[in-house]
């Protein structure tokens, strides 16, 4: 079962910081990452993010679980840059991705989804005059986070069913039921959202 970036209750400084401020730091890090071009800068950023996990009272295992799903992406991106741009660029690009993912993980691990949604709704408030519904965008964010776990659970169940039927080598036997279950879940979720007053 995935434990990627899900809120861990706590009273640390990282937990007590306002969710809006943490989102702002994440945004600033994303923008600032454009200017990173030396491996030592990446190493320094990794140390800072690592310290963030320590301050939040989160273990090394939790930190590694945030990075694990990215392993293949980092490997492929790194290999591409080693061949095309050299090892230094490969370290910078993969390091920046890793830092941002770990930082995003730290934000969601130390902030309730509802607090993140509230912060986003506040920030998007001025867009109401242009017909944007900030609450709806906030709901999309919350549903997106929730759906990660739902689809991960479906993937596990489909994989188990595949193994039981001896279809381990068939990508189609994996993808088709996973997509069908996900779409059916989306239908049911839509109905539940209406029933729970999401269209109010």
């Amino acid at each position, binding site marked *: *079962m995935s434990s990627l970036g*899900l*809120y861990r*209750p706590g009273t640390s400084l990282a937990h007590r910081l306002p969710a809006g401020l943490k989102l702002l730091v994440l945004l600033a890090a994303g923008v600032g990452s454009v200017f990173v071009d030396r491996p030592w800068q990446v190493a320094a950023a990794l140390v800072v993010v690592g310290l963030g996990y320590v301050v939040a009272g989160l273990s090394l295992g939790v930190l590694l679980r945030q990075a694990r799903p990215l392993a293949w992406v980092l490997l492929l991106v790194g290999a591409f840059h080693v061949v095309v741009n050299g090892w230094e660029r490969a370290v910078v690009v993969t390091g920046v991705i890793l830092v941002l993912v770990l930082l995003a993980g730290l934000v969601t691990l130390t902030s*309730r*989804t*509802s607090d993140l949604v509230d912060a986003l709704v506040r920030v998007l408030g001025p867009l109401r005059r242009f017909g944007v519904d900030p*609450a709806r965008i906030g709901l999309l964010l*919350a*549903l997106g*986070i*929730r759906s990660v*776990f*739902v689809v991960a*659970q479906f993937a596990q169940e489909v994989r188990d069913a595949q193994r039981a039927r001896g279809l381990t080598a068939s990508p189609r036997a994996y993808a088709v039921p996973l997509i069908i279950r996900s779409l059916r*879940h989306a239908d*049911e*979720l839509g*109905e*539940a*959202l*209406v*029933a*729970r*007053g*999401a*269209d*109010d």
Partner: protein
Amino acid sequence: MIEVSGVTHVYGEGTQARTVLQDVDVQLPERRVAVVGANGSGKSTFARLVNGLVLPTRGTVTVDGLDTRKDGRAVRRTVGFCFTNPDAQIVMPTVREDIAFGLRRRRDLSKAEVAARVDEVLRRFELADHADHPAHLLSGGQKQLLALASVLVTEPSVLVLDEPTTLLDLRNTHRVAGFVQSLDQQVVLVTHDLDLVDSFDRVLVFDEGRLVHDGRPSEAVAHYRALMR
């Protein structure tokens, strides 16, 4: 009171059209109403008509005078709906957040009042120890209790439950049934579990889209059993 007048419901169009409910007329003032029937008999469509999730092709459905066609949002605020599969109904990542979801647009409640009401519901449904836990990691029984809690926190005057115990073991079935019994709300329960309807005031039996029996639990269950032979 729930009033269903001359309701027919058809899914699809043209050659794909399928009538799932036909000429249903019923008034339900009782506090405990159960709906039984075989798979595909139209009972889940009937449940969805009551809270306006499905609008009738012909006829009208009203709840406390509110027409599901004209006053859909007001009806859904009056009628809470609990689905068979709680996973489809849980929309927020943690237990506390999911219960608070239904109150997020209640401008008459302060943040503290929302938190107090959520805490009260968490205690009542024995979920307080799991308040900040991921909802997807709860057991099946706990998820169904969370689904119930998330609906009841909005204090609807009617609760529709569509086969809420189908995915539960016997212990959790008894737990959910116990909570349902203790509710002040009017309850419309769609179920295959005939033991659950014993204590109900009235039982409707559906078969092939028609309301074929309407009466006390003992007679209705006997009628349904005979129908299924």
